[in-house]
């Protein structure tokens, strides 16, 4: 394996290895810096996770490996880990003073290539280069496989399913359980793009990816189909294949987490980390296929939306579950959880194609200070630009506000939420579709609206329910668990801040929003979906929000990305929600 694959090939590898260390403890940061320097590595330190993410995004190829602490105030280390893995595909090492097996397992599940216990010894750091090397080798191998496949294919129509399959295995280094991989292999690999240059999955690119996946249908998806739909000339099937694999892992992880969390407050969006978001990407329709909607959790029995387990419960689940609806219950927080479900997304799509009114005007959100990195990981967020952060916040707020109600209060809620949402909404460009998606959640509420409609004030915070959880959570830096657990997860956090808005209000607001929507589950799904999307976007943007939870397993994705869309909500609101 030649070291030329490193962006800055060094002759005396591993000397000069570019390490990014993230730890909120200044003492450890200084010690690690010194230790790594002694190993002749190039060290960059960072005490904030979101700052680290922005550094990584700024210089796509600027680092070889990331070392991060697990417990950080602004963002859960696991969430950061997932982001880095998805967006930058860099090896990440976790550190903690806590060596409990469950934590270590969680780290590995989230993709950490190693888990170190504090106090850390120099000798442990000396060997971290192996993770970088291993990855390079692996990528090279994949590349080679594809190359050979490509050659094989030239001239013949795909006859080698078997070969392809084999190649896939090599490339993905994981077993591909999905049958769809087979049929997508027909594609010819473009040799020119097989260069080692790592593909950075920017926000835009990922969004396209998610969109494509959604369109095809998560169950039927395959690299070739996705690639065709995405229509990105320089992207190879191999790139898509490996990205899809990661995405799947991410989604399944989120689902698991959601499942686990289902017991606690329903909306655990935590699992929505980027992967989920991917599903959200489906914006249109794919959602239907998603079964993830955790809708099951939601009990409407008395008309109250309970966010139970809104967790996106696995995308696999039937989208109808718009579970989020249930979560919306009473607290209005509910939305947050469900939206995450990809399922929701589909429903959300329903028609809301309105563009969310730019939240910026809201001005309530100060939160965004996080810069949304352009490539954001799984979230659908279309275009979150760093600047948009503010917007996204705004979006969130707007969406919230807009959602069902036009009341000013919404703003309040949003503010807090936006924070959380902000992270999600950071995706600046909430496309109409997305907006639509966001708006969709309203339908969920709609159902409940009947009961609450009257009480619902214009707070329209329905959006609030979107619990931006995924995204927002992260932002807070509070453990994401917190966020995910609370159905409104975000909500709770945010809401607490919001003193002005009571859950009731929010709920009401949501209801209002829902009114327009029509109670169909599908709609709900959409709603949730939106949320999820919102979250995706939000995650990035919200960082400021302090949603530390962010990643709470998947919270990010859970966050109703829709929140951004919420801006659109307002628009939609008028059209749809106004009963």
């Amino acid at each position: 394996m030649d070291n030329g694959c490193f962006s800055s090939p060094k002759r005396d590898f591993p000397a000069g290895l570019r390490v990014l260390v993230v730890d909120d403890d200044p003492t450890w940061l200084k010690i690690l810096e010194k230790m790594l320097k002694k190993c002749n590595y190039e060290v960059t330190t960072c005490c904030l996770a979101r700052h680290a993410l922005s550094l990584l995004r700024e210089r796509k190829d600027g680092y070889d490996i990331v070392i991060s602490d697990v417990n950080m105030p602004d963002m859960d280390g696991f969430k950061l880990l997932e982001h880095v893995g998805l967006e930058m595909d860099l090896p990440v090492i976790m550190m903690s003073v806590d060596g409990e097996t469950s934590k270590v397992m969680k780290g590995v599940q989230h993709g950490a290539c190693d888990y170190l216990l504090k106090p850390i010894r120099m000798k442990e750091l000396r060997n971290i280069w192996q993770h970088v090397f291993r990855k390079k080798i692996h990528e090279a191998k994949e590349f080679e496989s594809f190359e050979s496949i490509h050659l094989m294919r030239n001239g013949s129509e795909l006859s080698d399913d078997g070969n392809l399959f084999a190649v896939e295995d090599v490339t993905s280094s994981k077993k591909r359980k999905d049958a769809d991989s087979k049929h997508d292999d027909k594609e010819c690999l473009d040799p020119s793009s097989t260069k080692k240059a790592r593909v950075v999955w920017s926000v835009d690119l990922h969004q396209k990816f998610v969109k494509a996946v959604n369109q095809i249908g998560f169950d039927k998806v395959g690299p070739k189909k996705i690639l065709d739909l995405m229509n990105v000339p320089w992207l190879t099937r191999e790139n898509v294949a490996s990205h899809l694999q990661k995405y799947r892992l991410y989604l399944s992880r989120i689902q698991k987490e959601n499942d686990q969390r289902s017991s606690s407050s329903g909306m655990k969006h935590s699992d929505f980390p980027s992967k989920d978001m991917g599903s959200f990407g489906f914006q249109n329709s794919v959602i239907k296929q998603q079964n993830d909607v955790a809708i099951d959790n939601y009990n409407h029995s008395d008309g109250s939306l309970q966010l139970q387990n809104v967790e996106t419960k696995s995308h696999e689940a039937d989208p109808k579950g718009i579970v989020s609806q249930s979560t919306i219950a009473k607290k209005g927080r509910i939305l947050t959880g469900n939206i995450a479900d990809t399922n929701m997304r589909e429903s959300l799509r329903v028609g809301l194609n309105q563009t969310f009114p730019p939240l910026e005007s809201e001005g309530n959100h100060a939160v965004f200070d996080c810069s949304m990195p352009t490539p954001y990981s799984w979230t659908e967020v279309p275009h979150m630009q760093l600047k948009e952060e503010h917007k996204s916040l705004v979006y969130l707020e707007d969406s919230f506000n807009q959602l069902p109600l036009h009341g000013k209060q919404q703003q309040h809620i949003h503010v807090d939420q936006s924070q959380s949402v902000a992270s999600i909404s950071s995706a600046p460009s909430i496309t109409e579709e997305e907006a639509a998606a966001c708006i969709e959640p309203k339908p969920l509420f709609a159902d409940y609206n009947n009961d609450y409609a009257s009480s619902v004030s214009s707070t329209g915070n329905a959006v609030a329910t979107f619990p931006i959880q995924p995204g927002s959570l992260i932002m807070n830096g509070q453990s994401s668990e917190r966020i995910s657990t609370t159905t409104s997860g975000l909500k709770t956090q945010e809401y607490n801040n919001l003193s002005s808005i009571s859950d009731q209000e929010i709920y009401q607001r949501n209801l209002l929003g829902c009114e327009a929507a029509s109670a169909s589950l599908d709609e709900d799904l959409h709603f949730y979906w939106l949320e999820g999307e919102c979250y995706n976007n939000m995650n990035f943007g919200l960082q400021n929000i302090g949603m530390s939870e962010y990643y709470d397993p998947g919270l990010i994705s859970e966050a109703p990305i829709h929140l951004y869309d919420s801006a659109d909500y307002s628009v939609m609101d008028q059209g749809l929600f106004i009963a």
Partner: protein
Amino acid sequence: MDKINSRRQVAAMKQSLFDQGYLDEQFIQLEELQDDANPNFVEEIVTLYYRDSSRLISNLDHTLERNPVDFNKLDTIMHQFKGSSSSIGAKKVKAECTLFMEYCRARNGEGCRRSFQQMKKEYATLRKKLETYFHLARQAGPVETAFRPK
């Protein structure tokens, strides 16, 4: 002669700190990191630790005073504090942290308060001892010769 005595004193004090369980292996790691580029590395780290951890301690104080006690929050803060303490090898302090966290999990408010008091004592004792140690070390001259482990 004086120099030699000073160095012996420093070495003896360091040894006793280890023997009495105040410090652990991590402290040696820190000393190994000290070099020409950072000749006072260990002292800088210890100073940084005491400065940063004092805010965690006051945080813990406030949280303990509230009623009802938020054990989860206590656990989180203490977790941070423990991690920080591990950075300088504060062995006794770390042990008290672990005990404290156990009380937290058991939702034992009284136990938490007691172990918190004990932890603060250890924390203060170690600080004094280290101050003395660094003072002696500075007097004894360049540390490398006397303390750098082979």
